[in-house]
């Protein structure tokens, strides 16, 4: 066993991530057959939260800015879909995405322009305040937004109207199709995010995170980069909101409210904000943990709070951080 590990040529160890990716995809693709409807639905929620957390982590993990207002962008996506349906009668998921993303980008750019003038706690408070503005608007302008009742969004058509879910048996068909749909969007978004953080732009963000002064003395215009990161981050999280609302069937001001921003922070910490895949693992794990916590006890917040405390004390680098540490240690033991 030991000898085999040592003899493993370098290129073969490099192939592991790809092999893992392929196996992961096969497993993900067969989930509806294996786990059944309810788990599939939960996992769809998980993948959506993973997209939201990936977007959030572009700011936290890669740019070093902690936003407490990402519920705002998630809710922005959700409400945009509801308005597109209500005002324009649009039922197509693709149109929701294509029209929703530019709107999210514009609002993110506007909010970001204000927020990136500051860093640290001041940045956090500004993001929180702006998301609360959206929350208040959704709550108070009830003749437009439905107030605390929210707005209903029935199941849209998928793939330019080729798939619709009218008639009997619509729900299970929707859950199965929508899972694959979200999985597809998730893979594309994760790939895009992966390219962004490994691009020269992404490296510049990480440099600014590590050392703002030095970054300035490479000639980088720090505020512009932070603004760009904010815009992308908000838009990604809004995409998650767009995908979320048809699955939930309803959007209420809760998705704009600050505790949900806290949940996005929680997911990211749970998975680990120093790893690319941390927010993905965190988004999925959080969805399942919360669902089962809510189902098993009325003190579910206490349970989640405990998880958070244990997490910060024992696993400051999150699930992915801890796992990769263990793997590294095992490899080191095998080598020695």
């Amino acid at each position, binding site marked *: 066993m030991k000898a085999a590990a040592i003899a493993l040529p370098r290129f073969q160890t490099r192939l592991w991530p790809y092999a893992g990716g392929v196996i992961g995809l096969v497993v993900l693709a067969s989930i509806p057959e294996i786990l059944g409807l309810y788990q599939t639905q939960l996992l769809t929620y998980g993948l959506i939260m993973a997209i939201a957390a990936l977007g959030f982590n572009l700011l936290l993990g890669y740019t070093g800015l902690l936003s407490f207002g990402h519920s705002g962008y998630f809710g922005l996506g959700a409400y945009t879909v509801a308005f597109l349906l209500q005002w324009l009668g649009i039922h197509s998921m693709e149109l929701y995405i294509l029209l929703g993303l530019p709107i999210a980008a514009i609002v993110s750019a506007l909010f970001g322009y204000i927020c990136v003038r500051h860093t640290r706690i001041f940045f956090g408070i500004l993001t929180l305040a702006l998301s609360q503005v959206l929350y208040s608007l959704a709550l108070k302008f009830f003749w437009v937004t439905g107030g605390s009742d929210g707005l209903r969004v029935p199941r849209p058509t998928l793939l330019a109207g080729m798939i619709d879910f009218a008639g009997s048996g619509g729900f299970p068909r929707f859950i199965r199709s929508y899972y694959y749909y979200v999985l597809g969007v998730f893979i594309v978004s994760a790939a895009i995010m992966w*390219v*962004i953080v*490994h*691009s*020269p*732009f*992404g*490296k*510049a963000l*990480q*440099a600014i*995170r*590590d*050392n703002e*002064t*030095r*970054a*300035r*003395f*490479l*000639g*980088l*215009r720090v505020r512009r*980069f932070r603004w*760009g990161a904010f815009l992308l981050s908000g838009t990604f999280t809004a995409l998650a909101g767009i995908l979320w609302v048809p699955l939930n069937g309803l959007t209420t001001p809760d998705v704009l409210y600050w505790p949900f921003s806290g949940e996005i922070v929680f997911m990211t910490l749970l998975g680990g904000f120093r790893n690319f895949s941390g927010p993905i693992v965190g988004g999925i794990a959080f969805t399942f943990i919360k669902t089962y916590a809510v189902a098993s006890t009325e003190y579910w917040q206490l349970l989640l709070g405990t998880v958070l405390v244990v997490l910060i004390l024992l696993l400051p680098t999150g699930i992915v951080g801890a796992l990769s540490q263990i793997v590294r240690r095992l490899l080191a033991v095998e080598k020695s």
Partner: protein
Amino acid sequence: MSLLRTVELRKRFGALSACDGVNFTVEKGEFLSLVGSNGAGKTTLVNLITAHVQPDSGQILFEDRDITSMTVAARINAGIARSFQLVNLFDGLSVFDNVALSIFARDGKTAKIATLAANDGEVRRETREVLAEFGLAAKSELPAGELAQGERKLLDVAVAYALRPKLLFLDEPTSGVSSAEKAQIMDTVSSVVRSGAVTAVVIEHDMDVVFRYSDRIVMMHEGSFLADGPPDAIRANEAVASILLGISTPA
């Protein structure tokens, strides 16, 4: 034409005159050392020239162009780069990426968002060259935060050097490292600076290092210049000697 010229440059911090009407010139291609006791105003002078601090009055001319009101980014584009006294690196990035980012920034490629940084062959090749020149090639995949102190100093200089400036300021490139490492760092720095035809201004406390590597030495004291000349002239200067003795004798 001097590469850099300051005219009556002044900067006060409260009652302290850190830069008191300094007329400083740097000639193209020289290796100049800026010496003086702590608080003499060396770092302030460099901060003023690199736009880290704004002057109260006076002018800064680079290649006969007035750059006094230019931003940091504009001065870097003009060809002025610096390293820092306390090591200033991107600790979360690899050694390789620290240098590569410098090259991306210099070439205006940092807005590229849809291509992988690792796929830019030109930048990769140049990064490898720079790392080899600084003897850091073997460490290129390590996070910068995991380097030893001497290597961090070298990398700090390499990051500034990779901008390919015309004028490079190094603020105490050997502070906080052992004397054995000092020589290695200075040998590396002076050889790359000379081979790359970069003009270098080095702030340094170790007079052995200063006398060995400099073409010219400028001595500052309480915000103004006390002496300016080649190493031999400075060595013979009595005013300099008395202050240097003050430095080397513990109080």
